């Protein structure tokens, strides 16, 4: 029997089952048994996933919390001693610990700045790209495929490509800017502290805008066409229609995209590590934490930084889940 045949046979059976609904208590009893069996199976089916998630997420996270309260170092994780909150903040003839480290606060500020600027740019550009892709024109499929390319390129590769384009001596960006007379000397994009954050933002915007555009495009394609026809008949200006009709309707999708992007931006690591390495002007919380953990081998201190980052992201996640709860609850 082919798959299709077996499926149609199965749905026939379902019809018989519905027709035989009158047979009362016997069916109900069987229904409860089936339901119980299914719930048992559900937990059985979930177990492997839950075990793996506990092994790669739950337990390591717990250990990171624990390490943040110890003086563990990379070479002697086992010989760690409990030192309380000393990694976070301690007074010993002056304040010490992460919360007293100017570099940490600089990296917090860098992360927030990076998140705010790049996600805002991605939202605006993403909506523009989505509106273009939503229009009917020849070659739309081709353009959509092309817009996906930056998203598909590995972050490390895009960072390298942009590092080459932004190269201070031989980079094409400086070449172009010199050519049109915007600048009169080559800029050192990735090394100059006042420019490097913009270099990083440029790469992130280039890479992540397609993601925002796709989510917004999906929302655009589900919009009802009748209110647009009505607006057209009434002769309302398209810009006004966009702000009064389209934007409010795509806001939920845009918000989801923005939150996903914001969570990604808050934990950003690879693009910055490759483009500007450990420079203080672009150091983010992830870079700071990994530097302490791996390069300085200070697992306790690095874990404390990781824990703080986790808490910030958890806070954002909780807010997001709270906002999205109705939708989740509605389905269950």
């Amino acid at each position, binding site marked *: 029997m082919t798959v299709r045949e077996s499926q149609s046979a199965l749905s026939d059976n379902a019809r018989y089952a519905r027709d035989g609904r009158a047979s009362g208590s016997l069916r109900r009893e069987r229904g409860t048994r089936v339901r119980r069996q299914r719930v048992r199976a*559900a937990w059985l089916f979930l177990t492997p996933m839950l075990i793996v998630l506990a092994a790669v997420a739950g337990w390591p996270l717990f250990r990171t919390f624990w390490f943040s309260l110890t003086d563990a170092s990379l070479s002697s994780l086992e010989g760690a001693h409990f030192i309380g909150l000393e990694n976070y903040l301690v007074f010993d003839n002056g304040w010490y610990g992460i919360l007293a480290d100017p570099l940490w606060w600089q990296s917090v500020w860098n992360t927030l700045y990076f998140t705010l600027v790049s996600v805002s740019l991605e939202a605006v550009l993403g909506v523009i790209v989505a509106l273009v892709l939503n229009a009917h024109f020849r070659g739309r499929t081709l353009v959509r495929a092309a817009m996906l390319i930056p998203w598909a390129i590995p972050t490390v590769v895009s960072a390298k490509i942009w590092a080459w384009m932004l190269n201070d001596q031989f980079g094409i960006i400086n070449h172009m800017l010199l050519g049109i007379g915007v600048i009169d000397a080559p800029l050192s994009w990735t090394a100059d502290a006042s420019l490097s954050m913009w270099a990083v933002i440029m790469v992130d915007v*280039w890479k992540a805008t397609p993601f925002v555009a796709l989510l917004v495009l999906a929302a655009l394609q589900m919009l009802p066409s009748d209110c647009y026809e009505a607006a057209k008949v009434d002769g309302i200006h398209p810009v006004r229609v966009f702000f009064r009709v389209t934007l409010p309707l795509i806001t939920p999708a845009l918000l989801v995209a923005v939150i996903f992007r914001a969570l990604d931006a808050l934990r950003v690591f690879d693009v910055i590590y490759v483009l500007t390495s450990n420079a203080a002007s672009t150091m983010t919380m992830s870079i700071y934490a990994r530097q302490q*953990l791996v390069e300085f081998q200070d697992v306790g201190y690095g874990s404390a930084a990781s824990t703080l980052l986790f808490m910030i992201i958890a806070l954002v996640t909780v807010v997001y889940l709270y906002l999205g709860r109705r939708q989740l609850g509605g389905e269950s």
Partner: protein
Amino acid sequence: MRLRILKAVVLKIGFWMLVGVLMLYAIFPFYYAVITSLKPSSQLFEVSYWVDSLDVSNYVAVLSQPAFLAAIRNSVIVAVSVVIIALLLGLTAAWALGRVRFRGRTTVMMLVLGVSMFPQVAVLSGLFEVIRTLDLYNSPGGLILSYTIFTLPFTVWILTTFMRQLPDELEEAAIVDGASPWVTLTKVFMPLLWPAMATTGLLAFIAAWNEFLFALTFTLTDSQRTVPVAIALISGGSQYELPWGPIMAASVIVTVPLVILVVIFQRRIVSGLTAGAVKG
């Protein structure tokens, strides 16, 4: 009347210019990487906008490095294993979460979604300990294990969304026929879920292929690295003379398969991304 035609023409030209600018913005960096990779090293430091000569010496240089070939092999092993594991565990979990009502389901869904939002660096030290205890440090096994932290949640999430869309009648019929949940899943749902599984698998593959932080931290030697780390660590004689030609050639090599996959499966990828995000 003439004014209206003029306006329409201007709008049309403006629209096509916008399309052109966006296309250029999206494609140019990759195009530039390709033409740079095809330049002989003597021409590398003259900026040009098209290919003057076809010189494959950068590709020869990269592909003759055993470390780079090892990196490609490692990346393929890791990404393929991660896809298989994520689909296997994700499919069973998605059946439970998508088709069965039970107490605690919403909690499990929240848990899965929560894990997908973990900052990777938050589990770095804990995971390092786990990997070392299991003796998986500096091996593809350690990466396969650690990558499930970000591939499994979204695999479960997307497959659950697709699983919910399947008609109830199918399952009712299977139950009436006395099919066990396992048989229902493998014989009834799996054939229908192939497109969704292909999509999710592709997204998991891309995520695993691109991962950098764990790969950088949990591998030590050239022979165990994955391609993103290999590319990030290519260095020249000094900090100031990076071999840009070979770096761009390596970049093109690891990106072309992804670009081809994405262009072919773009529709599926879009539906996968939106199923995972919008409906979540």
